[in-house]
């Protein structure tokens, strides 16, 4: 673990894996005075309360995976994505088996980024860990459910994107006018079910 200075009131905590990111996030979440806590692929950015942050990181066990989740969310999916066939072919299995694999797994929100409410979910079965499309789509429709590398995600709104799309959800993922704008937050546990 490496602490990198980021201006006067923030630190970038650099670690070696998503599991360690999760451990750092869990250790810092809820510390009084923290203004921003932004997990990413190999880092956690933390702004504010730097003395308490340094103290909390002193004795941290990075191998300890948090067992509690801020919330548990189920997302109904219609599995009719334009890349379902490609994904099945790449994995060497049937389309039904893709759906079974995707719905049987339990995911965790590793971090959000790219667009408001866009959550990168880890826990994807190995045979579904596939590369992005050779040529990204200029418009991925809102609610599309895709996979890319070790992640799966649902698009909160229409954006360009290169993920392989296996389905779509009608659930609202981000509504800035709502009391709780983002359906998914870092640390949440997520399951997909067939709608």
């Amino acid at each position, binding site marked *: 673990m490496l602490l*990198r*200075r*980021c*201006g*006067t009131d*923030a*630190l*970038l905590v650099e670690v070696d894996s998503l599991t360690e990111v999760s451990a750092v996030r869990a250790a810092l979440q809820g510390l009084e005075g923290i*203004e*921003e*806590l*932004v*997990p*990413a*692929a*190999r*880092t*956690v*950015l933390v*702004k504010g309360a730097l003395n308490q942050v340094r103290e909390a990181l002193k004795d941290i066990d990075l191998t300890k995976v948090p067992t509690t989740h801020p919330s548990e969310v189920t997302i109904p999916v219609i599995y009719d994505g334009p890349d379902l066939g490609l994904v099945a072919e790449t994995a060497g299995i049937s389309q039904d088996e893709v759906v079974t694999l995707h719905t049987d797994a339990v995911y965790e929100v590793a*971090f*959000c*980024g*790219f*667009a*408001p*409410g*866009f959550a990168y979910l880890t826990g994807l079965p190995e045979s579904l860990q596939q590369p992005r499309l050779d040529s990204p789509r200029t418009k991925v429709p809102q609610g599309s459910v895709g996979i890319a590398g070790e992640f799966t995600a649902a698009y909160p709104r229409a954006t360009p994107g290169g993920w392989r799309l296996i389905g779509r959800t009608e659930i609202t993922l*981000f509504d*800035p*006018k709502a009391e709780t*704008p*983002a359906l998914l*937050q*870092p640390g949440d546990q997520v399951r997909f079910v067939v709608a």
Partner: protein
Amino acid sequence: MNRTVTIIRTGPQALIQDLGRPGNAHLGVPPSGAVDPHSLTLANRLVGNPETAAGLELLLGALTIRANTSCTVAVTGPAVQVHVGEKLADSHHPIHLRPHEVLEIGTPETGLRNYLALSGGIDVPEELGSRSTDLLSGIGPDPLRDNDVLELGTPSPANDADVVPPHQALQTLVIPIRLGPRDDWFEDAETQLRQGSWTVSDRSNRVGTRLNGTRLNRRDGEIPSEGVITGAVQVPPDGQPVVFLNDHPTTGGYPVIGVVDRDHLRFFGQARPGTSVRFRPIV
């Protein structure tokens, strides 16, 4: 009865802004808010508003409004000509408008953004705790258009601030920058920053101020996306730095060579294309 003003004509860009919605970066939501918060809070104080009230951020001024109620307004930012009807009025000073009076804000000769506060503040619904327009992610109200009608909140009694100094736009900015978090991607980052010189690019916006000039030599490659804060100076492969302003993306994959303190960031928010920039690195 509702207190309102009508937008008769906007300039290049007129946005509703308050102090933004920090604290939501973990959801992928930029902080947004006025890029020169100092000028917005001064304007609010002149009309008796709390500093957090929503006002207007006017790129190159140039806004005309009609009051549909009596209200107090104040224009801050760089020095600019202001008229009420045909009569010249003072910027950086409270101005009382009677119903049907027209306020016309000219174009400042220096600087980039004027701020207009209206007594009671602009009353649009909050999104994630703020009324600010975020141009990157589309959160908050749309940019203003001609003929829009804006509702105002309930005014408080004016406080004792009655004149404030205009923003002094400088032809050369010398900006302190704290090295890190990725200064190790650069060979002798401190010297490169200290010896370089740049000008503000005309492709700058609320997402970031782009600088043209000395190429910062960095390692090739990208970092797995990581959180970035407002004021971060990111260096893409072309070596031309970008200073992240309020509507910046919450994560990025280019190395951040250093971070500009909040107190100095507003000078970028007010820097016209062509302004010279030098950095004073703090190790």
